[in-house]
């Protein structure tokens, strides 16, 4: 059985063919969700916004034309706009971070799963500290594996600009992660020193 041609499927979907749109939906759901999830850092909110992305895509499917950009790139453009609209209307303030997520492959040991959870959680939190453009570049280039040119098309920027943003984004991410690790280590050290001081004070109290 041959793979359906995504361009042909997108053309059928543009004719408001629900089956074709469903095919595109299943093919692109993970990419859209990941993009939104790592942008907002909250899984529940990411689910809602992902649903909004596909609702807007179906709403404006008539306007989609493959010659401008592939369907997935068009969806990710919509996702960027949906997230920006959400932040505009709700202020950019996340009260609770829900880091639950699913994985594509569940063939892994419990130890690997724990390590992966830690990794995902740390990077997710760090990504939320970056500016929008830097976060977008990191998601598109490394998490989704886009080329510089494709990332530039989705973001509406030049390839050179994407390269520059990418370097700045990696440096910024490294700094954020280092500061986070440093702050964790510093917090642990402070707690140990405080406990030591308390113990010392108790031992030096005069016995009545």
């Amino acid at each position, binding site marked *: 059985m041959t793979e359906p041609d995504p361009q042909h499927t997108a053309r059928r979907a543009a004719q*408001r063919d*629900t089956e074709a*749109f*469903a095919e595109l*939906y*299943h093919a692109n*759901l*993970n990419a*859209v*969700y*990941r993009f939104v*999830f*790592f942008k907002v850092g909250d*899984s529940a909110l990411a*689910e809602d916004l*992902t*649903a909004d992305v*596909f*609702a807007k*895509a*179906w*709403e*404006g499917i*008539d306007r989609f034309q493959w010659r401008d950009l592939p369907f997935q790139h068009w969806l990710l453009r919509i996702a960027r706009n949906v997230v920006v609209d959400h932040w505009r209307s709700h202020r950019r303030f996340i009260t609770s971070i829900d880091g*639950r*997520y*699913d*994985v*594509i*492959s569940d063939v892994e040991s419990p130890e690997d799963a724990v390590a*992966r959870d830690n*990794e*995902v959680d740390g*990077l*997710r939190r760090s990504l939320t500290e970056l500016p929008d453009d830097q976060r977008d570049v*990191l998601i598109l*280039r*490394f*998490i*989704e*594996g886009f080329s510089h040119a494709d990332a530039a098309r989705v973001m509406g920027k030049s390839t050179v600009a994407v390269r520059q943003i990418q*370097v700045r984004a*990696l*440096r910024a*991410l*490294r700094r954020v*992660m280092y500061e986070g690790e440093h702050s964790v280590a510093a917090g642990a050290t402070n707690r140990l020193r405080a406990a030591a001081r308390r113990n010392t004070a108790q031992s030096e109290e005069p016995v009545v």
Partner: protein
Amino acid sequence: MSRPRRGGEAAELFELAQRLQRLHAVAAPDRLRSTALAHALAVKRAPDRRPRVIFFPSARGLALAAGRLAASVVAGTVLGYGAYVASAASLPDSPLYQVKLLVEDARVAMAPADQRSQIFVEQATRRIEETDALIQDGRISDAERSASDAARRIESARAAAREAPAADVQRADVQRAIGTTEDQYRSVSRVLADRGGSPPPVSPPEARAAAVQPVPVAPEVAASAQSEPATSGNSVGAPLTGTGFSPIASVGPGAGAQVGATAEPPARVSAPPSDFAAIGSADASATGPGRSATTGPAALTPATQTSTPRPAVTNVPSPTRTPVPTTVPATQPAAPFSGFTPIPTSRTGGR
């Protein structure tokens, strides 16, 4: 992705990028997989945003609409002015001739009352020039039409001069210009008659005054006119025409009962040319001593000169006839007649 050879920052960034690549394993939850599609497909087709645009237009929409409107106005103005300019020299057989007449009528309608007579004189002069050109082209029927329009505008100029408030000096200038235009018209009419045409005659000075309709006056004025009918004609003082003439509403034996109906609004334009002889004959008994100083060099047409005066209506009271009140009260304001320019007689003056 190949690892960079040099260590330090590049190696750290490369490692960071590899860690990011592992996040590709994150997938959408199963519950979202089943619900988001239904949610998306439940959305109707793109809602029509036109009502929102209509009631709350964006700044860009407003700018576009304003731009289109301005472009339309500019294009309409340019085209309209172009058509007017092109029509200025058109003759009756031209498709733009009706545009020309429309513009002329609009100009008269928009002009203040004290300038209408001048505009009518200008238009009559233009018609006379057209008539001359048409005669030279041998288009006699078109020349007749143009001459008829010229005669109509001369009469309108005369009526407008009577109705407009103006000082005596300016009134005399207006009458002189009308008389000059009449001379031009008669000159062209003679040429047209020689070529087999039949131009309508313009009214003689006496007929002009007789064609004036009475101006409605207040009831108390009418009452005083009834009480002193013998002096009503003399109480006019200096009427608009400068003749001391008390215009009669209508002539003929049966018209006397209607003459007293002074509350009726006056008609603006004088009687048609065919009635000029009869009207001119009616003023013989009502003409005051100042009448001979009326309208400058205008010569009476032979038909009018030979017509027999018919004193059908006078201001003498009778048991069955209501005396006619004065048409123009002595308190008529004498606003200056401004903006008048004598019409040049270049084209038809030598004929």
